[in-house]
């Protein structure tokens, strides 16, 4: 026995095109213009899913994005409503949430258990007997209840991102949207018309009316003539953000659209009625039946029973009746308008006033309904159409924080007062007639034209030749006094019944937000588009409040489920964020470097010449620098050119130590603070000329320091004549380090005097090499005799190669980041990891650097009481006392008498093997710092259940006197 069928003629489908698709492996056919849902109905396939909690059989309820039941998986993408899926050849859809099969679902046992599966059931039942019970039960429950399964495989779809602008965004292409878009387009405005369906037309597609359809065709043709107008179908506006910023999913492209004005022609969604077994497959929204009939030429086989509380359902009833289906209407209202009665009589539609549906008979599809009310009769039927009235789609108008307001006359929420530049029109504000919608859309189009100062079109829009709009009369009825309410569904997708709403009330979850969380109402992928108003109206009635007093839950983007891939676009893997490469990157690649990410930078971590693993290689590279000479890429350092007559004064202000008297040709190590007195960064600054300085910053803080200097100069010290320019990308740098580094430079620059007298420690000189300026700076990060050699990025590689070649007889080789960082630990130099913006100068052992004689940024707040406390965590050196154990960065430090628990007294920042001391050493921050020098403490690494004994020592492990630096 069939219940649904495809009509021989009619509809907007392309019968010349036959499309083959499959559902749960079964092959079927449909036509061009079908959705998966309409094709399934045309194949008389009613049962398409099982419900979330009780595994009840579910069918197709709606014809659009509001569909709560008919969710399918396509190509591993779960939870797509069959009603929004355009039928394409080879489409293979699968049902969800049923095991082992849709017809026989083992989980349906839950449905027999439904008395105990009510709202709050999980939380209450599985909380005992022990505290962790919920943790134990949760995975099992999650497996039993749930929607489609996601995939761990990469999404094969390629998504894109697009940034666009327009004068007027029109959302929705029903009569109001089309009218608004054409009016605005005719004035020459740049219009974007976004329609979530793959066809333009909105409700026009659902009406069988020829005159309206030709009007739609004419408007679309006219719009296409306007080159500045973009018509987007399959384009869902997912969110509206500050400044009329719309985010639109258009196919697989996420469009970020800045609209000067927005017209919301978003239409309305029909509400279901709440009666027992209203979730039986074959119980559908009245308007959905009309859509399937008029747009897809799919109809119930022979008979339909309507249940309604308003006039709109009669349009569907009369259309179905005209298509030869026997129609009976149960209307909740006692008196009906003469017009409705007359047309019903003419169409042969039987009406039961003051009636509703007491029960639906049939398991996997509707067999009959029992009416309630004046006459209790049972009527056999193929389908049930329900209409609980219409809720304007206020979602998008609310994203900006405009709360919807309740309109008694249509018993629904409408958009609140929208900011200027936004208009809501048509059904979105409760205008339900075609002509009314067109007039309203045109009015909003003209308002936008006036606001933007465009030339309004001379003539009015043409109107379709249709009868005057019928009034919309509704008697709201809510299911508060329902018997058998545990099988009367309010939220179909989340399996929330009328009884659950009552339970929420009884248990005190009476605020709508509490009710939502207690019952899970509106928390499904449909976000309760058909459910929310029914539920909150029930709650209002239970609380004997008005609906506006009870209020709505908050509408948040996205409007329909949005796959994460669309948000990500192409920004994943290597495109997740920008990659920065040093000018020596290619050389490193070709010469055996292994790279490591450091912030955005790709840095040479270690080189193959030294070993195959970082653990072995960095030690070889360290030995090279301590005993001979190595060369390292330091191009990532922040490099800032500072020029101007007040440059000295400027530097003297930002550094804690004095810079006013730095002579030309000398560099100085400096530390700068934030205004709050905490350390911002360190580095060296060289005086190149009378009014020119060259600052280096740490790699990590390069951007921050640059911005900070600009801030001080541009916002506050506007009287200082100083200009700063970042050279970080324009210049490259290399450190030549080790006892033989001077020899290396002599070999590389034969004519240049690099003797200790000509270029002493902290000496700087610019030399010309092959006609290019090379900046030699005698700076050391490693603690050895060392130089930094900086040069324009264009020449960095050739200079690097030149030094390597010239100093080859000395055995010079490159060393990487791991060795660079380890050498500085031995020397006790702080780096990015210790400079975490939470430390004072004293914490880092740098307090003596600060000038007592001059003001500097952060000086005042540096002396805050708490920053002076003697038990602050401050820098210590650490030696591992148990050589067989492992010491890890991030280990928590405890005193030897502490219980190993909690946050401890500090932590290890940096660890290395010391080639000089032949043991593991570390830097760390410890409560009280070097007051505890010589004490034995404990490093704990709870994640690996490791503990090791350490000794607190001076952070300067080697060459405390600095003899090597000055050699």
């Amino acid at each position, binding site marked *: 026995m069939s219940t649904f069928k495809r009509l021989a003629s009619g509809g907007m489908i392309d019968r010349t095109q036959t499309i083959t698709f499959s559902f749960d492996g079964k092959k079927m056919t449909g036509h061009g213009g079908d959705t998966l849902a309409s094709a399934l109905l045309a194949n008389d396939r009613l049962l398409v899913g099982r419900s979330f909690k009780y595994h009840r059989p579910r069918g197709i309820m709606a014809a659009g994005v509001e569909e709560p039941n008919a969710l399918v998986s396509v190509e591993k993408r779960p939870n797509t409503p069959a009603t929004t899926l355009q039928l394409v050849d080879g489409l293979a859809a699968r049902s969800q949430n049923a095991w082992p099969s849709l017809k026989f679902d083992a989980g349906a046992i839950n449905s027999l258990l439904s008395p105990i599966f009510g709202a709050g059931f999980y939380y209450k039942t599985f909380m005992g007997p022990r505290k962790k019970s919920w943790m134990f039960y949760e995975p099992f429950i999650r497996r039993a209840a749930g929607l489609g399964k996601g995939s761990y495989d990469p999404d094969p779809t390629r998504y894109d991102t697009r*940034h666009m602008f327009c004068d007027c965004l029109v959302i929705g292409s029903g009569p109001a949207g089309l009218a608004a878009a054409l009016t605005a387009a005719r004035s020459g405005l740049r219009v974007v018309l976004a329609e979530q369906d793959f066809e333009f037309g909105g409700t026009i597609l659902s009406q069988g009316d020829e005159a309206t359809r030709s009007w739609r065709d004419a408007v679309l043709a006219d719009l296409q003539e306007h080159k500045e107008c973009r018509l987007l179908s399959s384009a869902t506006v997912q969110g509206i953000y*500050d*400044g009329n*910023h719309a985010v639109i999913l258009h196919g697989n492209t996420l469009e970020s659209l*800045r609209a000067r004005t927005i017209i919301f022609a978003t239409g309305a969604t029909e509400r279901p009625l709440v009666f027992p077994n209203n979730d039986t497959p074959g119980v559908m929204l009245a308007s959905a039946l009309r859509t399937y009939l008029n747009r897809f030429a799919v109809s119930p086989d022979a008979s339909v029973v309507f249940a309604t509380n308003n006039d709109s359902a009669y349009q569907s009833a009369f259309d179905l009746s005209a298509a030869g289906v026997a129609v009976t209407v149960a209307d909740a209202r006692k008196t009906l308008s003469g017009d409705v009665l007359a047309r019903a009589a003419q169409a042969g539609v039987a009406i039961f006033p003051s009636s509703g549906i007491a029960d639906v008979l049939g398991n996997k599809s509707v067999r009959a309904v029992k009416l309630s009310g004046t006459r209790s009769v049972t009527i056999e039927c193929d389908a049930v159409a329900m209409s609980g009235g219409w809720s304007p789609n206020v979602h998008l108008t609310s994203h900006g924080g405009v709360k919807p307001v309740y309109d008694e006359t249509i018993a629904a929420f409408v958009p609140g007062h929208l*900011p200027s530049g936004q208009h809501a029109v048509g059904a979105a504000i409760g205008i339900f007639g075609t002509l009314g919608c067109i007039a309203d859309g045109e009015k909003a189009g003209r308002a936008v034209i006036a606001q933007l100062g465009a030339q309004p079109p001379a003539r009015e829009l043409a109107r379709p030749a249709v009868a005057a709009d019928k009034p919309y009369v509704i008697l709201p009825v809510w299911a508060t006094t329902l018997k058998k309410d545990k099988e009367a569904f309010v939220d179909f997708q989340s399996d929330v019944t009328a009884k659950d709403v009552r339970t929420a009330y009884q248990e005190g979850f009476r605020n709508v937000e509490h009710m939502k969380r207690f019952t899970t109402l509106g928390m499904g992928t449909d976000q309760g588009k058909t459910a929310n108003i029914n539920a909150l109206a029930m709650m209002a009635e239970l609380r004997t409040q008005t609906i506006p007093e009870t209020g709505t839950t908050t509408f948040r983007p996205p409007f329909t489920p949005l796959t994460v891939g669309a948000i990500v676009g192409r920004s994943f893997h290597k495109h997740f964020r920008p990659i920065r490469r040093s000018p020596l990157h290619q050389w490193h690649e070709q010469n055996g470097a292994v790279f490591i990410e450091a912030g955005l930078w790709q840095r040479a971590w270690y080189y193959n010449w030294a070993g195959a693993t970082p653990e072995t290689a960095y030690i070889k590279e360290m030995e090279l620098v301590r005993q001979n000479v190595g060369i390292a890429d330091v191009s990532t350092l922040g490099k800032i050119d500072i020029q101007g007559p007040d440059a000295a004064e400027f530097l003297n*202000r930002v550094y804690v130590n004095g810079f006013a008297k730095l002579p030309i040709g000398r560099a100085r190590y400096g530390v700068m603070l934030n*205004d*709050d007195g905490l350390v911002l960064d360190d580095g060296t600054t060289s005086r190149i000329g009378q009014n020119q300085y060259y600052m280096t910053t740490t790699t990590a803080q390069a951007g921050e320091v640059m*911005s900070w200097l*600009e*801030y001080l100069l*541009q*916002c*506050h*010290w506007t009287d200082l004549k100083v200009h700063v320019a970042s050279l970080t990308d324009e210049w490259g740098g290399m450190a030549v380090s080790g006892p033989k580094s001077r020899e290396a430079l002599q070999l590389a620059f034969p004519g240049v005097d690099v003797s200790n007298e000509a270029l002493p420690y902290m000496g700087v000189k610019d030399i010309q090499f092959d006609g290019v300026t090379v900046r030699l700076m005698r700076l050391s990060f490693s603690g050895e005799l060392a130089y930094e050699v900086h040069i324009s990025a264009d020449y960095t590689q050739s200079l690097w190669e030149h030094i390597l070649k010239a100093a080859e007889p000395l055995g010079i080789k490159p060393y990487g980041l791991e060795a660079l960082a380890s050498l500085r630990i031995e020397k006790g130099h702080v780096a990015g990891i210790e400079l975490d913006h939470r430390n004072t100068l004293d914490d880092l052992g740098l307090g003596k650097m600060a000038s007592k004689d*001059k*003001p500097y*940024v952060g000086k*005042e*707040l540096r*002396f*805050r009481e708490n920053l002076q406390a003697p038990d602050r965590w401050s820098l210590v050196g650490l030696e591992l006392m148990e050589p067989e154990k492992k010491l890890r960065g991030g280990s928590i430090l405890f005193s030897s008498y502490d219980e190993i628990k909690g946050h401890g007294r500090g932590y290890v920042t940096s660890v290395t093997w010391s080639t000089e001391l032949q043991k593991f050493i570390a830097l760390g921050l410890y409560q009280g710092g070097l007051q505890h020098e010589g004490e034995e403490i404990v490093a704990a690494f709870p994640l690996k259940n490791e503990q090791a004994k350490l000794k607190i020592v001076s952070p300067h492990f080697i060459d405390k006197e600095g003899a090597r630096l000055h050699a």
Partner: protein
Amino acid sequence: MRIPCPHCGERDVHEFRYGGDASKKRPTHGSGDLKTWHDYYFLFDNPKGAHEEYWQHVLGCRQWFSLKRDVAKNEVLK
């Protein structure tokens, strides 16, 4: 949100960095005691509405400037 850079014109907010309250005057360098600096650095009004603030066109011309923004609506007021 779009931000009017005085040098480049209106640009997307992602090109800018926020620089905090611009309604307070920074104490002159070298003047002011701990309390002056404490109040300058730590005490801010948190108005719902108009707020004078610093922004830098950090991914553009790098100009710092101040503007007035309605922080409730994210509307640039001048």
